[in-house]
């Protein structure tokens, strides 16, 4: 704070019962405060981020080009540069491509379902009575506020093969016998359960953000569209959605980033040892580094994941910068 004290405005108006001089045009923004002030304010933040983010990021890249295993970790041997060996090893591995495909399908499923369900529930909340809206909001905020690990253990319990409520309830349906059914015996089925868990945790944020956005959609516009003969879908497609577009883009890109980075859900669901059929890029990279102790290849996989996300990130950034410009 003391740094800012040094930048007094050019001249304080005299404190006298005379009318104050007009404020300079444009206010403090254009007043040339010393150019150093903002940087002083930013310094602590930038320093911390450089240490905990910048340096590790650089290290991630250099590690990807090094042979780095147990002996390097303990300092018995120096890390040696191996060029593109790690990448060649990873990319030449058929399993890796399966993992990439699985991750993309998984994330795409999560994002699509999250956004569609979120939008539908947000629109539904506009049409229900007040008390129903309150109930739904309570359920949404409770599930949103649940720590991921708690949610994961609860879903483990819901889907437990012997005592899980889901098998018990489904088995009450005529002709269904699921007691003892193990949902995690096959990868696709198990990942579908994990997908449910991710969506259950992600929908509330989307609903609540979209609901906030929906209040900004001018009722007159929707009204006008209706009078011009637009149906419910037409109003949504040509009036509501365009107004919500910035929020939808932001939520979609964020969801892609989050769902590509799903880790604890898979890891805890599979008791810390995800089987081959459950591996996503995140768990795969983790395994390569901390189970096989090949930190170089693990880093290469993590770096490929980050690169895969760059395009999505670019879209998000453009959107956020636009928002940042609205001052």
């Amino acid at each position: 704070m003391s740094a800012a004290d040094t930048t007094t405005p050019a001249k304080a108006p005299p404190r006298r019962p005379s009318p104050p001089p007009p404020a300079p045009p444009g206010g403090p923004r254009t007043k040339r405060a010393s150019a150093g002030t903002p940087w002083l304010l930013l310094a602590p933040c930038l320093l911390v981020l450089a240490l905990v983010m910048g340096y590790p990021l650089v290290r991630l890249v250099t590690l990807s080009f090094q042979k780095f295993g147990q002996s390097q970790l303990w300092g018995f041997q120096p890390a040696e540069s191996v060029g593109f060996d790690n990448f060649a090893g990873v990319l030449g591995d058929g399993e890796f491509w399966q993992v990439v495909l699985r991750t993309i399908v998984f994330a795409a499923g999560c994002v699509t379902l999250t956004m569609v369900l979120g939008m539908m529930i947000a629109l539904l909340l506009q049409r229900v009575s007040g008390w129903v809206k309150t109930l739904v909001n309570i359920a949404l905020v409770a599930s949103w506020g649940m720590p991921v690990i708690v949610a994961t253990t609860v879903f483990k319990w819901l889907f437990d093969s012997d005592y899980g409520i889901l098998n018990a309830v489904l088995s009450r349906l005529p002709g269904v016998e699921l007691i003892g059914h193990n949902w995690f015996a096959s990868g696709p089925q198990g990942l579908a359960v994990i997908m449910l868990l991710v969506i259950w945790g992600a929908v509330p944020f989307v609903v609540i953000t979209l609901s906030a956005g929906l209040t900004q959609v001018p009722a007159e516009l929707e009204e006008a569209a209706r009078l011009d003969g637009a149906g419910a879908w037409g109003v949504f497609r040509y009036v509501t959605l365009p107004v919500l577009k910035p929020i939808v883009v932001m939520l979609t890109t964020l969801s892609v980033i989050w769902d590509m980075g799903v880790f604890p859900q898979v890891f805890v669901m599979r008791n810390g040892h995800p089987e081959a059929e459950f591996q996503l890029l995140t768990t795969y990279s983790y395994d390569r580094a901390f189970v096989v102790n090949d930190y170089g290849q693990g880093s290469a996989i993590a770096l490929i994941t980050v690169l895969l996300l760059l395009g999505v990130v670019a879209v998000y950034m453009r959107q956020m910068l636009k928002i940042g410009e609205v001052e």
Partner: protein
Amino acid sequence: MTSVRTLAAPRRTSRLGWNLLGLLVFAVAGFPVYWMLTTAFKPAKDAIDPDPSLLPTHLTLDNFSRALHIADFWGPVGRSLLVSLAVVAIGVVVGMLAALAISRFAFRGRKIVIVGILAVQMVPLVAMIIPVFLLLNDLDQYDKLSGLIITYLTFILPFTVWTLRGFIVNIPKELEEAAMVDGCTRTGAFVRVVFPLLAPGMVATSVYGFIQAWNEYLYALMLLSQNNQTATVWLSNFSTKHGTEYAPMMAGATMMALPIVALFLLVQRKMAAGLTAGAVKG
């Protein structure tokens, strides 16, 4: 919200349909939470009834005492508390200064800083675990809470900067200008005018940041040893001599989740307002 008044009669019936649909959403979204709570308060043998009743018949606190005794519970909770509070304290102070810089100053490089701070948020934490683990090893901070606190700033800082920026932008500049015309310095104007208006947003941001730090799992798992585990790791490792006992586990889950959900309820509305600041031009 909808403003068609001329169709009152058909709308009443359709309202009933929407309400039923809404109740279905409520039931589905709320069920996992409900099931966690009922299991936690059920006698253990009821929990493993092959034909479970959806409504609890007897209530008991046995599962809670079992959860507390199976493994050290307060140690991990204390560590989680300490880490989360420290991270938030540092994050909000440092983040606030940065948020002020990018929301109230025009300077060369502002855009780059914003892009940088946002970009940091976009890197999946999981991808960073390998170099972070090695970094802490080099700094002799492995298995130390201070090491975990430093690394948590990775995701807390960008978040606090961006959220506080949203709150600051919502405070009209004219207020500060008026104060400065009345003879306040820039700093004085901030302390007397902006800061009081910003306080609720800061509290909300702090609480939310606390929740994020409290919930984090991967770094806590990787950067601390078993004897130093945090609450999330404690829960994920929850097992007894008889394998996984779900009733006490749900009791543990309840103890971990309830305070967090309560905090969350307190701040979520405020956060939603801050997050969407300027997102839609009204």
